[in-house]
């Protein structure tokens, strides 16, 4: 590998510090022994982790967020993957319109979407239920799933599906044995985006949750209003750890195998 130009090295280092410093401060501050968030921390202790892990005020929302994130990801996958396949195959009238419609939530401020959802769900008698929260998150996550799957599927050699059909596979078996495995990198990337978008979404959750369904970002936000102790840093560190662990696992299982998808 050729050495990077010195200026680029400097630039990359500066950007890394800029991006990582705030995260690092939070993580380091979580290990403090003191009663206030300080940097550098006053002494080393795990007491704040112990505190938040015993506190149902954090643990319930954490569980809610994980559950919501996973369900929103699965639901948006079930909607976006068939949509992407149908849109690329292109025999549908008005496919440009449909695609734009499905991607539209990307350009809509989530707080506006949240207000709209609040009124709508109240009208149909679903307000503040887990279902309406999930619906809101699916709307937000579908475009991410759709974009990545569309990208991968559009770049796929269509003759490979033709080959499967001629070899005796009907439409379903072609999708199961050939299309889905081949677009897996797109699905995995879309799922990561979708989960992350849902996992730290605040606006919709703020308006559509109640005491039972509150999510982690919402509970952190409301805790911050009245408290300034390192519990927030500790729960944030746990949240970061979950995301990083999820990314590492996915990279381990899917990232390496992607190499094999570079056919020809």
């Amino acid at each position, binding site marked *: 590998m050729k050495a990077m130009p010195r200026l680029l090295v400097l630039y990359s280092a500066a950007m890394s510090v800029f991006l990582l410093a705030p995260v690092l401060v939070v993580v380091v501050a979580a290990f403090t022994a003191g009663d206030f968030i300080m940097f550098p921390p006053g002494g080393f202790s795990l007491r704040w982790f112990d505190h938040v892990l015993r506190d149902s005020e954090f643990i319930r929302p954490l569980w809610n967020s994980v559950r919501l994130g996973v369900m929103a990801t699965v639901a948006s996958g079930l909607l976006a993957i068939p949509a992407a396949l149908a849109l690329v195959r292109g025999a549908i009238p008005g496919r440009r319109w449909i695609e734009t419609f499905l991607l539209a939530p990307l350009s809509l401020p989530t707080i506006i979407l949240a207000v709209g959802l609040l009124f709508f769900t109240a009208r149909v008698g679903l307000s503040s239920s887990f279902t309406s929260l999930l619906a809101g998150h699916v709307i937000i996550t579908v475009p991410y799933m759709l974009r990545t799957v569309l990208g991968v599927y559009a770049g796929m050699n269509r003759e490979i599906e033709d080959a499967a059909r001629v070899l005796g596979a009907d439409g379903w078996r072609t999708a199961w044995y050939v299309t889905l495995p081949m677009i897996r990198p797109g699905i995995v990337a879309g799922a990561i985006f979708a989960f992350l978008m849902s996992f730290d979404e605040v606006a919709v959750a703020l308006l559509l949750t109640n005491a039972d369904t509150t999510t982690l970002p919402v509970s952190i936000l409301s805790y911050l209003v009245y408290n300034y102790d390192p519990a927030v840093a500790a729960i944030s560190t746990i949240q970061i750890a979950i995301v990083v662990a999820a990314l590492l696992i996915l990279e381990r299982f899917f990232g390496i195998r992607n190499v094999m998808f*570079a056919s020809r």
Partner: protein
Amino acid sequence: MDLMNTSPSITSHAVAAGALVDIRAIRHRFGTFEALKSIDIAIRPGEFVALLGPSGCGKTTLLRCIAGLVTPTSGEILIDGRSITRVPIHKRDLGMVFQSYALFPHMTVADNIRFGLKMHGVRGAEAERRIAEALALVQMVGYEARYPAQMSGGQQQRIALARALVTRPKALLLDEPFGALDAKLRESMQIELRRLQKALGITTIFVTHDQQEALSMADRVAVMNGGRIEQLDTPTQIYNAPMTSFVADFIGQTNRFSGSIQSKNEAALHLRLDGTERTIEIVPCEGMKVGARVTVMVRPERVQIAAAGMPSREVTLTGKVTDTVFVGQTLNVYAQTDVGPVVASVSNAMQREAKVAASGDSVTVSWDRDAQLVFRDA
């Protein structure tokens, strides 16, 4: 343009009775574009037919119609006497090889070949035996565990062939299978495919835009142009007795002259070449009236070049050599004659005997009347 050569040619209907693949009046339209304009071909069991033509002539569309990947606007396709026009792709029992190989990139070689067997319900020891057999057939034993990305183009195409053959399809369809290979590999794959095809006796339809490939491999060649079949014939007939000027032009190199019939008698027609005072004699044929517009084509290898004043053939022009191009087995000699440029292809051996080929030499350019392919203009 009409055919004026008297050579007989096999028409598709004559053999329709024993056909394995029988294509009847197939038309296909993409929007307002007519990709196929009523195609009829009857292909005998075990026959190797090449669909040859320039890009956009409809050859690939026709192949995809047979496979079921394209549904023709009208017409019928029969395999083994049974209409498959409404049979879905996966129930047609055909094998297909694509230009892009289209191997499943996420499966090993063995799994690629196993796929068709699995779809046909062949499993276990029988499947393993047939996979081994298919790999042996294409001389790729030992590659079972490789992924497509770990093989060269030629190797991938062999696997694609094995995958298509392992289900013992009724017919094998190939869509420009060697188009992405380099010249040398291409030739060895052509020879191998032909060997395999003969050994298995499998009916084969091969799409190509490469005339050399079509002529050297096929039992019969269908030359296609603008959604129609111009001629369906043996390679020799296609080359020596083209039925239309398109076929004559498309296959091989030709010298082309246009003119109109000036006079006729029992022995010959006299063709006045456009833009000159010059007339040449052509073999008389039926229905040719004085004044008719005619195109004459002569293959370069039938043109003789000799030093000025040397004995010559029946139709003789005089001119000067402008260029010589050495192309290996032959030397192409370009001469400017009194009726325009003419190219003659002289074999190496002949060239050594008669030292005629140098730029600026005065030469006689000549050929026999029967070397002329004559077409009446539409």
